[in-house]
């Protein structure tokens, strides 16, 4: 085979791997009861494919081939372990508790249970015994098929750090005897919150990256959205899953409009709404409808999605339903009390009921220690003060904001706003 032919086959194998690896790992984890072993077995199958396919050609149904190969080895492994276990003659209680893992594996059930297995894998990777960073790394590794190097690039940390995080995470899961199973009903809300937190963390990590940054970072948004959609398919009855999907789709719809030609950030109010992605907006609104239709009091993701939907459906800043947004921030404040939420409410109230009312709320936040070095507080105040014609104070606020932000582009933006503030007495009307 030519070098080019080999490369093409290799790329094809990688594509199949990306598509199949989560299902593969999930199915294998159920057979072996051990996510670390499952990942190794899946990797082994990949290695065999990389050896054989360039020579023999890509099989007609490559996913099934990978699954059959890995499954064969998994069954082998489990049988060997069973023999080992018997030889160890463990105490009866322990043996009993492990019987379901080390008994003869129910291989035929594997195909029917792929959905359930994926769900178990998601809950395992996002288990609260792991730190949020470890959960994110393990999830991207097991459910998105990213390599440690890719995860490292995406999170701007050294590769060995990520590799270590993943290894430790797997070791922790094994040491704490975390089983490959759905959380018990009573624990489900907390466990689900942990999963949603990880997905949104991955999304925000990508969303925070601006154009010009490494491509790997923005792609985290796509990974998170894919995970969210998968989860929404597996847990159709959970409103907050749809709420999170809606929130991500609606936020991502603005990606193209968030940065200007030179990569500078463009605030929501200044964005060219023609550049918003209508397809993602449609997806987001549909997911939000799903969340609403499930009834019950809305959770924090659904409320945030409602806010994003207000923006997505408005043709301009002026025609935005700011009153509804302000009310939604009150609801969000009940669900997730935070000074940042209150600051956003100040912005919305400032738009709905005038800058003076907004400034009242923002000024009440001035003493909050949590916001002491938060650049957006003075930036919001600067904007409200400028609209009130209090140019000198506005300028001072923007200068403060520029001094607080670590983001160069944001600094330039705030500085420009400061420079634009002129005292009405001396400047032109």
């Amino acid at each position, binding site marked *: 085979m030519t070098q080019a032919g080999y490369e093409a086959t290799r790329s094809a194998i990688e594509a199949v791997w990306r598509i199949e690896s989560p299902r593969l790992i999930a199915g294998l984890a159920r057979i072996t009861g051990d996510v670390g072993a499952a990942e190794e077995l899946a990797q082994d199958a990949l290695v065999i494919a990389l050896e054989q396919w360039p020579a023999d050609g890509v099989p007609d149904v490559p996913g099934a081939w990978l699954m059959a190969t890995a499954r064969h080895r998994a069954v082998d492994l489990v049988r060997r372990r069973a023999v080992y276990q018997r030889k160890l003659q463990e105490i009866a209680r322990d043996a009993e508790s492990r019987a379901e893992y080390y008994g003869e594996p129910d291989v035929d059930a594997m195909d029917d249970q792929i959905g359930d297995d994926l769900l178990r894998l998601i809950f395992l990777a996002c288990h609260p015994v792991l730190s949020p960073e470890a959960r994110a790394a393990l999830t991207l590794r097991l459910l998105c098929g990213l390599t440690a190097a890719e995860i490292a690039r995406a999170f701007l940390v050294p590769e060995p750090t990520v590799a270590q995080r993943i290894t430790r995470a797997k070791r922790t899961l094994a040491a704490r005897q975390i089983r490959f199973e759905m959380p018990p009903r009573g624990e489900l809300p907390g466990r689900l919150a942990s999963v949603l937190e990880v997905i949104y963390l991955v999304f925000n990590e990508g969303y925070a990256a601006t*154009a010009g940054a490494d491509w790997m970072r923005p792609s985290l948004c796509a990974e998170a959205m*894919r995970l969210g959609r998968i989860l929404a398919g597996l847990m159709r009855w959970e409103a907050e899953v749809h709420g999170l999907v809606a929130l991500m789709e609606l936020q991502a719809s603005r990606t193209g409009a968030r940065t200007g030609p030179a990569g500078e950030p463009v605030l929501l109010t200044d964005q060219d709404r023609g550049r918003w992605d209508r397809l993602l907006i449609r997806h987001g609104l549909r997911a939000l409808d799903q969340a609403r239709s499930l009834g019950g009091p809305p959770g924090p993701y659904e409320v945030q999605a409602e806010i994003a939907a207000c923006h997505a459906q408005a043709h301009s800043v002026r025609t935005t339903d700011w009153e509804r947004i302000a009310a939604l921030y009150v609801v969000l404040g009940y669900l997730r009390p935070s000074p940042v939420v209150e600051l956003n409410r100040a912005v919305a109230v400032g738009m709905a009921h005038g800058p003076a009312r907004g400034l009242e709320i923002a000024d009440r936040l001035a003493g909050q220690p949590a916001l002491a070095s938060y650049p957006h507080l003075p930036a919001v105040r600067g904007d409200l003060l400028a609209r009130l014609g209090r140019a000198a104070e506005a300028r001072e606020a923007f200068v403060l904001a520029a001094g607080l932000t670590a983001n160069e582009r944001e600094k330039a933006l705030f500085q420009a706003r400061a420079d634009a503030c002129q005292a009405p007495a001396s400047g032109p009307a």
Partner: protein
Amino acid sequence: MRYLMLLSGTNPATPPPPELFEAIMKLGGEATQAGVLLDTAGLLPSAAGTRVALEGGQVTVTDGPFTESKELISYALYEVRSKEEAVEWAARFVKLHRDLWPGWTGATDILQVMDPSGS
């Protein structure tokens, strides 16, 4: 990366078997479930379509059927990480036709959608 897939083909005289529709729905479900299929729909035959053309400065409107030997059958919009992934999904789709509708010939054209944000 977004890819638009356009399926075109020539149908044999036999009607499409119901198993094909079932398999297509199943595969579409899998792709949706995997979070990669953003949009898809089948298209009516071009006999029901119209072409607006510009040639020699003249705008003409002509009702179908179009003269091309192959009919556009459906479109799908995928969000995947590489072109190879798009190729793999398209291949699965085409293989269903091979396995379930003997005599069918056709092709899926895979075109990348321009995206200024690059993701």
